[in-house]
């Protein structure tokens, strides 16, 4: 068997038994990258040399019979908006194409402590703005299931690299669905943890009140293992939570008896692709069969979520993007005479069109004339959306929905920004409410494209969605199927 196909837990077992070495595993993954990266374009940077050095360190630990962590020696891809010390972190933007952070993100520090191995930085929509990874300034990542199609976004490189076995797992970031939607498009498990469960320090901000880092993995067990490593309070991020961290692997139980699974009214109606709807219906039936109780719930303000999301996300993004001025780091225009020219040319040349669009929209809704009607209004409706979920979780353990209204679409298919925004319709409510949500494979459509199922949990209740997801996985085999490359 090719080692690159392994999951984290499979590889870990073989490493512990000394049946394989970390170096062999890393070499296998690097070789796989060599074979398929031309087709997939998942990476902005590949850190082969460093990865092999780190693998040797792990092999020494193993040789000395030191206990190794679950992630030791496991090659990972990291979304290119998560800062890595001395390794380029570009956000797939010309603005940061040569930016080398002099610091690690907290998640990277934690994964390094576990001896996970950074194999490369994954392509993404520029500054995480997009749902297809087509907004990258550098390259268009392809969906390994059909290279004419997008891998989803914005963590498209993170998802595609794992789906194509170019990494054993990856990290993405999720502001409005950017982990779950590409996981769904690529047939993977993607988890957006509770807001504040994972430190944002070193995650290049898109929208501070929405951004979360999370894993994209080949199965639910791997997902729990990565979450174990990255979750927890970080003093560098005052918005991170001090709630105690569970051992998430204890949730890996094949049992949903007595689980109350909520299905929101209207979520499975008109605008949903028939084949997606079909898969979701089948998933609901399977859960029923496995002993869960399906409960109709109402999320009356969910239909406003998308509008609220775009106002808040763009407002915060316009502010996060203000610092890119060509003075301290990043791109700087070459031809300027005055300060104003320096600013305007740098930002106009350095940012792509989607970034500019969102900066403009964001600045619009926080300008004095529009603040109350749009921004403040959105913050208030956010409260209503959050309260809907509070009420729902009084009745149910998890909430089930599709992850995306469609399977992966063709490159260039969705040109209108508004149409593109609409593909986030099922994912944004969890970000607005801070809730944990997972996407897992629940079928394939007639084109052979994966379909994703989303489970939303109550705040800090990652364990319940992991358990429900694990149970589903144990009773299906969608996660085992791999794309043919």
């Amino acid at each position, binding site marked *: 068997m090719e080692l690159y196909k392994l999951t984290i837990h499979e590889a870990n077992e073989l490493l512990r038994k000394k049946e394989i070495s970390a170096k062999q595993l890393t070499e296998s993954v690097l070789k796989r990258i060599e074979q398929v990266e031309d087709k997939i374009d998942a990476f902005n940077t590949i850190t082969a040399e460093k990865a092999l050095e780190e693998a040797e360190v792990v092999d020494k630990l193993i040789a000395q019979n030191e206990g190794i962590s679950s992630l030791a020696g496991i090659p990972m891809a990291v979304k290119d908006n998560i800062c890595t010390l001395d390794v380029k972190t570009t956000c797939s933007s010309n603005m940061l194409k040569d930016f080398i952070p002099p610091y690690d993100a907290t998640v990277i520090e934690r994964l390094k402590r576990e001896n996970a191995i950074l194999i490369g930085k994954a392509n993404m929509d520029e500054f995480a703005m997009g749902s297809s990874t087509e907004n990258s300034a550098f390259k268009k990542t392809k969906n390994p299931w059909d290279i004419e199609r997008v891998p989803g976004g914005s963590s498209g490189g993170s998802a595609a690299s794992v789906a194509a076995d170019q990494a054993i797992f990856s990290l993405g970031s999720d502001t409005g669905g950017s982990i779950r939607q590409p996981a769904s498009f690529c047939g993977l498990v993607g988890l957006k943890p509770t807001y504040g469960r994972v430190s944002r320090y070193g995650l*290049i*901000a898109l929208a501070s009140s929405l951004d979360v880092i999370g894993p994209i993995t080949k199965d639910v067990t791997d997902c729990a293992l990565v979450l174990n490593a990255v979750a927890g309070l970080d*003093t560098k991020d005052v*918005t991170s939570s001090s709630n105690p961290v569970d051992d998430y692997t204890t949730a890996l139980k094949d049992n949903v008896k007595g689980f109350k699974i909520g299905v929101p009214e209207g979520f499975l109606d008109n605008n949903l692709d028939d084949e997606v709807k079909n898969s979701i219906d089948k998933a609901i039936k399977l859960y029923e069969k496995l002993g869960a109780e399906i409960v109709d719930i109402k999320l009356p303000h969910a239909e406003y979520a998308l509008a609220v999301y775009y106002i808040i996300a763009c407002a915060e993004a316009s*502010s996060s993007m*203000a*610092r890119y001025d060509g*003075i301290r780091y990043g791109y700087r225009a070459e031809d300027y005479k005055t300060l104003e020219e320096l600013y305007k040319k740098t930002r106009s040349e350095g940012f792509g069109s989607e970034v500019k669009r969102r900066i403009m929209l964001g*600045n619009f809704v926080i300008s*004095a004339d529009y603040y109350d009607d749009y921004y403040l209004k959105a913050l208030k409706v956010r409260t209503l959306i959050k309260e809907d979920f509070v009420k729902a979780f009084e009745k149910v353990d998890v909430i089930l929905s599709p992850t995306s209204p469609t399977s992966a679409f063709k490159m260039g298919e969705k040109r209108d920004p508004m149409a593109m925004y609409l593909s986030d319709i099922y994912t944004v409510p969890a970000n607005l409410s801070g809730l944990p949500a997972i996407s897992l494979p629940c079928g394939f459509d007639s084109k052979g494209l994966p379909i994703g199922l989303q489970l939303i949990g109550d705040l800090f209740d990652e364990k319940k969605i992991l358990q429900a997801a694990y149970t589903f996985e144990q009773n299906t085999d969608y996660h085992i199927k791999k794309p043919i490359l």
Partner: protein
Amino acid sequence: MEYEVVIGLEVHAELSTQTKLLCGCAAEFVREPNTHCCPVCLAMPGTLPRINKRAVEYAIKAGLALNCDISEYTRMDRKHYFYPDLPKAYQVTQHYHPLCKNGYIDIETEDGVRRIGITQIHLEEDAGKLIHDQYETESLVDYNRSGVPLIEIVSEPDLRSPEEGRIFLETIKSILEYIDVSDCKMEEGSLRCDVNVSVRPKGQKEYGVRSEMKNLNSFRAAHRAMEYEVKRHISILEEGGEVLRETRRWDDNLGKSFPMRTKEEANDYRYFPDADIVPMYIDKEWVTKLKEEMPELPSERRERYIKEYDLPEYDAGVLTSSKALADYFEECLTLYDDPKNISNWVMGDILRITKEKDIAHEDISVTPKQFTDLLRLVDEGIISGSIGKNVLEDMFDTGKDADTIVEEKGLKQISDEGELLEIIRKVLQDNPQSVEDYLSGKKKAMGYLVGQTMRATRGKANPQMVNKILKEELDGLKEK
């Protein structure tokens, strides 16, 4: 027409914390550029702020000292504008929920005490510094100051003259120094102010159109700028013109204000809450604890000086006008138990000398010990009071003790009766006309003769004894 002046002030004071507002870099003033910087205060991508607790406490203390309500709920907002000294292109400040509100201070003016409202005090971060003079076509940016905590104190438009404005600023400065939350060193830029000036016909209720001048970095400049603007507004109105609502730049060298190049866009800072920083709930216990830690305020100290030391109100006011001076006074008191005498010397001579030599009250080089030793030399009659004043000047110049100077310069008072008698007899001999005048009833002549005696001894004669002996001698002559 008679006009009424309306002035509102915004005072920005850097807080004297160890570290910056949002990161652990040292906040101290340093000349070497970009040495007190880190990824956070340079706004490198992915970095996050962490608020300095002491900065919040200092702002609360300022609020308490200025009689403000301390908000139970407060949070930080972002104020957006592009400028190279502002690395995030937004300033972390407080717009929607300031920390302190609705305060006041009492200022002492020639017309008595006036109460000036404080609209709010909020916490914010300072910007970096631009250096324009090093290169011809380029400016340099130094981010050492970027992120140093500031408070902005916003007054109500209650000030009615530039002079009141000046007194207000000095009172604020003295309060902040007293409670030890700011160095208030204007030369290092740690205290700056914006002034808003308008005038209106006396009796009119509505405010006139105001102009604003930002970043005045000395009280003198602020005072001059206010006076200039008042005159400018009045002369525009007198000529039937209209004052423009605008921001102006004060040129202290030329003593004039100029309109800033108006930018076409409206000044929209697009304030919104900073989601990287969590809200603060300021509980009562915390405020109470801070209240207990607060040192005595100038007004309280003034009252105490009047009550405990029996000083006149005027003396108490002068001595407590700066914390350094009041501290100096009290240190002297521990060494020398005559408050009024110390007060006389401090107010008279020390303040005259420091003013002449441009010495800050913090930097008075003559120690309280040296100074009170000098007072004792005068008390004991070893030198006269007027010689004492000269000795004090010498002490400032040389740093030497009083008795060393007296010794070196031979300034000891002549109190030997025989020696004085000899000198006085010679003076009488040399001034027969004055003696005759005295004897014929012109008592004034006595003063002249005392003066001559002092002159003959180069001021060293004990004045009481000179008076006594002269009188005896003259009275002796009279009897003859």
